[in-house]
């Protein structure tokens, strides 16, 4: 566990760089984490992140399939927005825990 400064705010993060408290998250923090992941954040990214946060904070499990069916973005679009490891990257930018899903 460590403290990190994002957008002038000190937040606690795990060793992998995930926020430990989703309520500390702001859009500005998201933009800075995205930059670390090599992503220039856009409204399209924010739309996906809003969906992810909403679903997670309701306690629902997150899978690539559920995001692909969200109507916010399709699976291919999700991979395009967060290239490489989309679920991990999007979760990190959304300020939620590292995904534990196998699908």
């Amino acid at each position: 566990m460590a403290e990190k400064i994002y957008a002038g705010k000190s937040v606690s993060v795990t060793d992998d760089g995930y926020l430990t408290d989703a309520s500390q998250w702001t859009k500005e923090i998201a933009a800075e984490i995205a930059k670390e992941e090599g992503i220039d954040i856009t409204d399209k990214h924010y739309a996906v992140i809003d969906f992810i946060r909403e679903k997670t904070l309701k306690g629902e499990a997150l899978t690539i399939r559920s995001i692909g069916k969200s109507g916010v973005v399709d699976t291919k679009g999700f991979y395009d927005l967060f290239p490489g490891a989309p679920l991990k990257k999007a979760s990190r930018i959304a300020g939620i825990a590292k995904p534990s899903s196998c699908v």
Partner: protein
Amino acid sequence: MANTIDHPIKKVMIICAKASIEDVYAALVMANGAVMEGIEAKVFFTFFGLDAITKKQMKKLHTGTVGNPGMRMPGGLPFPTILGILPGVEAGVSAMMKSQMEKLDIPPVDEFLELITAGGGEIYACKLAVEMFKLKKEDFSEHVKDIITIGQFYELAAGEGTQIIFT
């Protein structure tokens, strides 16, 4: 964890030679899991595994109820093999497995192939097995990229950080 940083897996080549639900899903979950992690994934279906990518068969996969020591009744009691030979039992057990998977958000085979290919994964059919079963390109799911020989499979496997996995 140092090992994972120094020598990450960059590509997995997964071979599926059987048509049972558990064999096919093992291959699909591994392939999709790789793609999710940003690892290149290519799946090679051969012999009975071709059922998983054949339009006519892919929605009808079963799990074997005979000669399967892992089979148990709901509740955990042993599943007598003699039950497994009765008509409809294998279909019923298979339907139950599929409904359990759906609850975990594990998609049906065709949708799973779509998920994998949407993430950049590639699906191949084995040329030898395709000829053996007298199948044609149009018999396969649209997600099948090509019918290839084992030699081409090894060519695709080239590169540092590749793992070949036979499920």
